[in-house]
């Protein structure tokens, strides 16, 4: 039986290229394409999907947030992140969101099909350029977790997602639309997070999100 794959990328040229390459590998079947994270989540809710190839840099709901949503709805669905970014923050965010692989977009020989096969067999995969860099950082001791981040360890992936959006100034209504949830549910998340984090208002949540590096001020505002 073929492995059903959803492609999520806002660039058609990438979707077309990947689709054609997967078309050469017998075991994969592209059953859908999405340009946005919201469309991808909707697709997953309506059709059983074995794997998702996800661009990390989607506009709106980004690839990491979309991955967290997909994994929450379909824990068996395996998400593979495709990224132009190769910094460890992107890699760590992607893996924490539930992705099984992080593949760097390159022009030359892609490890795409091999990576998909590994992930389908239950494994994980990082592009060599990414894993080499991470190993070097770990060897230097640069990847130790920061004490401030410990405050967020008690939050679920969904709560972290909402916290980031709150800290970015989005209203409960806006967050509800982006995550396809009821506004009341978002309000409930806010209350639970405040209780867990010991803060009393949105300013406290924002401060925590900033100090732990979960989000950052827009550059102009940070000046």
């Amino acid at each position, binding site marked *: 039986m073929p492995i059903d794959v959803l492609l999520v990328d806002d660039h058609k040229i990438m979707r077309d290229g990947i689709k054609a390459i997967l078309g050469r590998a017998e075991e994969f079947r592209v059953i859908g394409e999405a340009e946005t994270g919201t469309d991808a989540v909707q697709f997953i809710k309506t059709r059983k999907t074995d794997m998702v190839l996800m661009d990390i840099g989607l506009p709106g709901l980004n690839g990491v947030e979309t991955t967290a949503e997909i994994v929450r709805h379909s824990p068996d669905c395996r998400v593979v992140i495709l990224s132009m970014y190769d910094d460890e923050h992107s890699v760590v965010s992607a893996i924490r969101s539930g992705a099984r692989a992080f593949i760097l977009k390159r022009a030359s020989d892609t490890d795409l099909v091999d990576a998909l096969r590994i992930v389908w067999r239950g494994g994980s995969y990082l592009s060599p350029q990414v894993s080499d860099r991470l190993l070097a950082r770990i060897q230097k001791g640069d990847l130790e977790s920061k004490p401030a981040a410990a405050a967020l360890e008690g939050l679920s992936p969904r709560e972290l997602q909402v916290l980031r959006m709150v800290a970015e100034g989005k209203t409960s209504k806006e967050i509800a639309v982006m995550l396809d949830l009821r506004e009341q549910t978002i309000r409930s998340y806010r209350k639970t997070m405040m209780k867990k984090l010991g803060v009393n208002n949105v300013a406290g949540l924002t401060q925590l999100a900033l100090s732990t*590096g979960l989000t950052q001020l827009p550059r102009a505002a940070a000046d």
Partner: protein
Amino acid sequence: MKKPGAGELREQIERAGKSLHDGVAPLLAGAGLKLQLLRMDHPETAEQVNDVLATLDDAMERVRRLSQELAPSPFTPPSK
């Protein structure tokens, strides 16, 4: 012409970085995928295609470095 302020200049620089990342790099990657398909369908072109792919990959790596320098990934925590 009025000179841009520091904040405006930073915004322009970030916009340039994002444009490289979101606009130019995917085109290079997409072109690379198409070349890989060409090589699969016409193995006799492999040598020439590999040459072009290497050049394209070099260009992509430069674009990646420059774009990350101008506009860090959205997952990068703020510098202290």
